[in-house]
């Protein structure tokens, strides 16, 4: 019998995008607030969000960041990198250029002390293989984010899995994003649309379309996803909200994935880190759209003991709740869920470091 998992609690600064973008907080403010409120010990950053001049990172910045981490007692878990294959206007980056583009980001992660680099779906199995020597050199793990509308059974993810199994390196893996496995359209988004005066009948039809697509199952082809996208655009136009059609289609068909929580099990041996994506916590303390309790239960039962970043994406539309409070409530839900499954979440920094060293096979 597998020992029960003890995942490590943490947060990504992405959850606090709204205040950071508005210059209300600096990165230092956010890191200190995370520590003060006990939202760690794990801490994740998006390189292209938090670090000015990224992917160039000065030695002085590295020293400053490591000093801040030492002082706050937080544990760096993941640096999120971006694979900007469309960087140039005239053409796509070649595979060589894309690999070169990722290199300084991987190096920056290692220098800042992050054991995992989140990379994105623009990277093919060949690209991942070409990046492997770099990951080995810096001893970081590259986790390709499995983000809606992709999902564990999607052919692109299956192709990566197949390559990982061939290569057998623990330096390559996945970062599952829980947004691929929703059970309901977030009520806060509908509340926002309602506040903005969107027609009530359209709101009902958006939710109905999502459930219709849910019954069809997570999309296996781009054609299928395209058809859904056009369906939502059409609804918006029919109801006089054509100007928000793209936004509604991106939200309904792009963010709110249809995979089942059990689908993650196949990827767990390769899950280097996770994005505990969530949208809202209701009055009872549950997440009505992301089945947090079910997912945490599956991880614990399967013996998975990696880091989970609480990733609040509700800020895109929800400007009436405090992001720190929402994250705290989501983490309480995760801790309860782990306890209900007979285990617990790791919240002590020293224990987190030792659990993650074992997870990442670092001595």
């Amino acid at each position, binding site marked *: 019998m597998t020992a029960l998992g003890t995942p490590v609690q943490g947060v990504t600064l992405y959850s606090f*995008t709204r205040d950071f*973008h508005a210059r209300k907080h600096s990165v230092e403010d956010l890191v200190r607030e995370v520590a003060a409120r006990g939202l760690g010990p794990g801490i994740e950053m998006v390189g292209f969000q938090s670090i000015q001049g990224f992917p160039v990172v000065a030695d002085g910045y590295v020293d400053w960041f490591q000093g801040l981490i030492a002082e706050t007692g937080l544990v760096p878990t993941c640096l999120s990198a971006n694979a900007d294959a469309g*960087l*140039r206007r005239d*053409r796509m980056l070649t595979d060589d250029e894309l690999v070169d583009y990722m290199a300084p980001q991987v190096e920056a992660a290692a220098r800042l002390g992050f054991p995992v680099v989140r990379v994105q779906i623009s990277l093919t199995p060949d690209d991942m293989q070409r990046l492997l020597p770099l990951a080995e050199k810096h001893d970081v793990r590259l986790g390709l984010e499995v983000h809606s509308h992709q999902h564990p059974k999607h052919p692109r993810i299956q192709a990566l899995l197949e390559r990982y199994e061939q290569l057998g390196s623990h330096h390559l893996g996945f970062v599952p994003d829980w947004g691929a496995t929703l059970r309901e359209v977030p009520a806060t988004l509908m509340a926002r649309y309602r506040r903005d005066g969107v027609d009530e009948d359209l709101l009902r039809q958006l939710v109905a379309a999502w459930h219709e697509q849910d019954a069809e199952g997570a999309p296996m082809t781009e054609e299928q996803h395209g058809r859904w996208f056009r369906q939502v655009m059409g609804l918006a136009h029919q109801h006089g909200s054509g100007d928000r059609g793209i936004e509604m289609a991106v939200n309904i068909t792009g963010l709110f994935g249809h995979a089942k929580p059990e689908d993650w099990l196949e990827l767990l041996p390769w899950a280097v880190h996770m994005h505990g994506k969530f949208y809202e916590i209701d009055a009872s303390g549950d997440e009505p759209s992301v089945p947090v309790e079910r997912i945490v239960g599956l991880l614990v039962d399967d013996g998975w003991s990696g880091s989970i970043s609480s990733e609040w994406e509700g800020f895109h539309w929800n400007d009436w709740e405090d992001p720190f409070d929402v994250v705290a409530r989501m983490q309480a839900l995760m801790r309860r869920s782990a306890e209900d499954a007979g285990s617990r979440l790791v919240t002590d920094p020293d224990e987190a470091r030792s659990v993650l060293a074992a997870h990442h096979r670092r001595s």
Partner: protein
Amino acid sequence: MATDDTILISDSLAVREDGLAIGLKIPWYRSLWVSSVSDVVVKVGGAEVPKDGLRAEINGKSFTIPELGEQWDELWFLQDRLVIVVPQEQPPARGDEVDVEVTLSIRLPYMQIAPQVYVTNHATNHRVLVAG
């Protein structure tokens, strides 16, 4: 788009000797290369400003709008402002109210939907701003 599409904020507008300077927030959640800016349309007092008169300033450099598309090694940091300079023979005085509308189109270089086609976010803001 899903994210905060606020590009104009209360202190966006500044007066210069030869015109207006409009500081824009990036309508996305991360820093992007300046080459992601695919178009900028500015209206002042309801009238569109000819594009060839506009300049865009960032990181201490100044570009025409078409030149922005070539700047794929110039980063627009999330907390920085892209300053659009509108030439005017008689700029308003500090404290004056000015009706400003800006549409900024940005192409997201990692969200491809077809060969050479990327998700583009068009953010339009219309505000009456006090010149600073």
